[in-house]
């Protein structure tokens, strides 16, 4: 990964006929501090990561007796699978739990299921209620970052592992930043997502045809990466 945000900026400036010889420059569309571009970049990047999820991450956090709800870290987009000590937990929903296990809210045992519905954003819940403590890890939890380890199952710890698309914790960007997570070849589609927004603006840039083209090229990138995920990851 070596593509910088500046490279995407240069591509957009070239199409918008904006100056971009070095750093940023005041033009018709982009202000001297390029804040509009960076806002669009943040939005498109998160959208692209969330819709492709070709790069995944694992996060393992300690299980605590009596605690059912566990936070998902900000840099994990959405859990797709959960494991307990390496053993897969079955995904379920509130309706299923209510239908097939009326006493689920008070049962205590080794968890066999997990769910995301009926919970705050970035939270998963285990069922039954854990009746043991898993191995603890060092660190102090915050409101958005639980204590845990990345890209390890640690099955003998008997802890909760989430597998999901890798995201980024921060939504603040500078032009000199290297674009994380995505391989360089994937980043070229970000420019089309950003250009679609510029050409859709209600102003001098408005160009319906080019907005449609850029939007469809962006969708092409998402479809391509989803097709790769279906074949390689069999999702």
């Amino acid at each position: 990964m070596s593509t910088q945000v500046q490279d995407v900026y240069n591509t957009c400036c070239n199409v918008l006929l904006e100056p971009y010889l070095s750093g940023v420059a005041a033009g018709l569309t982009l202000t001297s501090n390029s804040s509009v571009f960076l806002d669009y970049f943040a939005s498109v990047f998160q959208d692209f990561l969330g819709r492709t999820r070709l790069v995944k991450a694992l996060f393992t956090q300690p299980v605590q007796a009596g605690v059912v709800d566990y936070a998902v870290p900000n840099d994990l987009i959405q859990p797709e699978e959960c494991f307990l000590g390496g053993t897969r937990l079955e995904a379920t929903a509130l309706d299923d739990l209510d239908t097939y296990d009326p006493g689920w809210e008070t049962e205590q045992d080794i968890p066999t299921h997990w769910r995301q519905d009926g919970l705050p954003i970035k939270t998963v819940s285990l069922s039954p209620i854990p009746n043991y403590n898993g191995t603890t890890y060092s660190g102090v939890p915050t409101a958005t970052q639980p204590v845990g380890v990345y890209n390890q199952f640690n099955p003998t710890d008997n802890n909760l592992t989430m597998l999901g698309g890798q995201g980024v914790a921060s939504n603040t960007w500078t032009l000199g930043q290297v674009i994380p997570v995505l391989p360089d070849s994937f980043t070229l589609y970000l420019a089309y997502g950003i250009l679609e927004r510029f050409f859709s603006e209600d102003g001098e840039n408005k160009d319906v045809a080019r907005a449609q083209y850029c939007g469809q090229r962006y969708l092409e990138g998402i479809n391509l990466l989803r097709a790769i995920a279906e074949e390689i990851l069999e999702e």
Partner: protein
Amino acid sequence: MPTFSLATLRQMALDRVDNNTQFYTYALGANAYFDIDAVINEAIRIANLFTGFIQASVNLPGFTQATTLIYSTPAPIIIPVRVSYNGVFLDRTPVARLAQYNPAWATETTASYGPVQEWVPLGITLFALHPIDSVGGANLNVIGVQEPTPLVNANDVINLPDEFVPLITEYCAHRLPLKEGGSIFAQGAQAFRSWSRKMKTLSRWEGVKMPLLETKIRQIVKVA
């Protein structure tokens, strides 16, 4: 497989846009052809993502490690497609399926379960081996789609299959006029349609959906 230099690809792309060097070249630093070079490299990257024509076979640095479950896909591979263990091909198994039918998969080792049989992709940057190599020191080879080396200097070369050369030039023919807009951009729809259909045919990924765009461009330009 013929070899093409960046200078040759530049001229072939410019031939498709009426040799308009006034509008389709833009100097950045010492490179007088910065924007057309960027489009050529973009075309190569997209063709590689669709077809995987640039592949690499990479031995995992440091071999397998004893009791290690998860490994990182070695650079410069961006999409792993095949893994072999000491020269033996491993089956690819989704993690959900393996974990569903074999709950103890993450703790089984070659000492208790038998030889390494499967590789389990965890996205494109991580994969696991099942069962875990309890000894280590084995040769792990990953084959996959590689990141193309960008063409920077005029005499930089790339090997391209014969059928890819018109793909590169057709991509440039519709992509370069994007900054013009209007009817000039819309006239590139023919090149885009041709490129899109060829790419769909050559794609190695089943199920990829190409955008249905060119008719929309023509309708919009006609109304305007």
